[in-house]
């Protein structure tokens, strides 16, 4: 990570977001009795059984739990990647539970960056193009400005030398940094990460955790799903899910 705080602030946090953080007294994320049932035979599978939760702006929340406890489902619902069965989800005052697929995509592009365990980079695009892609979809700035911001984000994550390589030409840790850079492309106030260190060695995982902590310092709200107890120890708050409920 680059040590310059000024640079980091410029890149990762827009003045508008800082202002929101200062003035808003309400919870940044609010879940009210969220239920998610995956349809199937015998009534389907109830993945979340009435979760109610508040997450503050600038909080680093880690969600842990066993496989199948509903962690990934919760992240998917928070970011509008999936629809809930009942309940309410409010993020920064937006009713995510009411969004259809298109509205959710549009909202997510500007308000929620998502990082996945398996990186999910487009293999035919260069590292820089992968980072600028969300800005293209959001229609943010000119193409030149997008490239400049993409390069700045890559520099912030110390992978700018790989900007013109394909994802397959860099290591797993570097790919996760690219994915993080991509999630920051539109300066989203929320960063949701699903097992971001799951595919990385411990040393690289530590670096990624450091990046998240830095982002939290800069005012981002980070919600992170992990099995990793060391990573959980770094969080402001740890939430454990068990069988679709908060333990």
């Amino acid at each position, binding site marked *: 990570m680059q040590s310059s705080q000024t640079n980091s602030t410029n890149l990762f946090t827009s003045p508008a977001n800082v202002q929101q953080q200062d003035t808003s007294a309400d919870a940044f994320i609010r879940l009210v009795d969220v239920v998610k049932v995956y349809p199937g035979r015998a009534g389907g599978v109830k993945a979340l059984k009435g979760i109610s939760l508040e997450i503050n702006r600038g909080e680093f929340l880690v969600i842990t739990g066993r496989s199948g406890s509903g962690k990934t489902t919760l992240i*998917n619902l928070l*970011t509008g*990647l*999936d*629809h809930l069965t009942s309940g309410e989800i409010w993020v920064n005052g937006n009713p995510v539970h009411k969004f259809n*697929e*298109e509205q959710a*995509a*549009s909202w*997510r*592009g*500007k308000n929620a960056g*998502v990082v*996945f365990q398996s990186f*999910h*980079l*487009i293999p*035919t*695009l*260069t590292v820089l*193009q*992968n980072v*600028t*892609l*969300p800005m*293209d*979809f*959001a229609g943010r700035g000119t*193409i*030149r400005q*997008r*490239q400049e911001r993409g390069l700045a984000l890559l520099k912030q994550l110390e992978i700018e030398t790989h900007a013109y390589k394909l994802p397959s030409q860099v290591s797993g840790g570097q790919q996760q940094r690219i994915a993080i850079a*991509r*999630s920051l*492309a*539109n300066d989203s106030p929320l960063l949701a990460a699903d097992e971001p260190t799951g595919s990385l060695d411990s040393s690289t995982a530590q670096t990624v955790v450091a990046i998240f902590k830095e982002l939290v310092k800069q005012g981002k709200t980070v919600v992170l799903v992990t099995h990793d107890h060391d990573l959980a120890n770094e969080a402001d708050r740890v939430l454990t899910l068990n069988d679709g409920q908060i333990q």
Partner: protein
Amino acid sequence: MFSAQFFKVLNDVWSNKTRTLLIVLSIAAGLTAVGTVISARILLSEGIDQSYGSVNYANGSLTTAQAFDKDFVRSFYNVAGVAETDARRTLSARALNPKNKYSSIFIFSLLDYKDNRVNKVASIDGKWPPDRHQILIDRASLSLLDAQVGETIRIETASGDWRSLEIVGTVNELSQPPATLLGAAYSYVDEETLEWLGAPSGFNQLYFTVKPGVTSTVEKKKILESVVAKAENAGYTVVTSVVIEEVPINSIIQTLLYILSAIGILSLFLSIFLIINTISAMVTQQTRQIGIMKAVGARAIQILWMYLFVVIFFGLLALVVSIPLSTVGAALLSQYLGGSFNFKIAGNPIQTISIVIQIAIALLVPTLASLVPLINGLRISATQALSSAGTNQTNYGSNPIDRLLSGANVWFTRYTLVRPWILAVRNMFRQKVRLGLTLITLVACSISNLT
């Protein structure tokens, strides 16, 4: 400078060259077929108009039992509506070429070679008009006779005698059905020579054209009736009389063009099915990438436009193939048909309207054809797409065919141990629409080939 979306599109086209080639050739096949037929149709129509414009093709004719002379022919100018008149006599005979090969031959004597007015015969090369015991051969008939200018052919008379005639030139006959279709050669001699070959003296076939402005069949029939009445009043027995609606090859050419158009449209449909299948496969292959794009904020309409841009790019590449191919195809087809039907094709094979239609089809048809698989592919949610391994989420097992195959699987596994075969069959039935389109394409190809 271009956006990442643009590079995604470009890389999708370039990264799978075999697929790109397959789609481009699929589109190009349909475009070439349609473009060839459109251009050939225009070239043939122009060729017919130009060739027949100079022939002054007859609007009506009558045949009499008795022979008539030139004065009688010219007397019909008095009949209201008649513009020009001319006459012929025809003798049907057997010819023997220098290689002792027999052929059927029609021998015409024209009323006036130097003042040919209706159903004009044009001299191509050699002598015009022929002298006594000389003969001119229609250009397309030379191959039937297997003879050349300068050679002598022998004609069998009605009495069984053989007469020798020197071929002194070639002509172009457009007022008769193509010689190659009838299997009989057309030839031209003077009045005395035809008599020498055993025909009665004088002429017995009268041709006339109507004045400009007379277009309806009813009007032409009335004029014909007047001509017939005049001939009968003059003491002639009219054996046949007919109004001629169109040039003889027009209906044949039109029929051929309709068949070619049908094949062109069929090819276009086949290419549509191939496009749907290939785009469907492409979307299935890229399901995860669609999920990634949705996850980073892409709306379905934005992704749809990206893939449509790919499809439009395929269409443009197909045009690069189809425009030159259809131009060459149209030139070859029209030259072949023109040659077969004895008229010249002089038009430019690069036809703007054909190119414009090809561009419209190249941009519209693949775009519309790919909308169904694209919309189906984009309907999947981001989470479903991200968890996809490149195969569509299908509800396999929800209908009787699937259950039958599953039952068969158990039976075959138990009794015949051919599980891989059944697995292959079940995989085939996973995408039933694609299977249906593939079968339709194969059947349509077979029908097209049989046609």
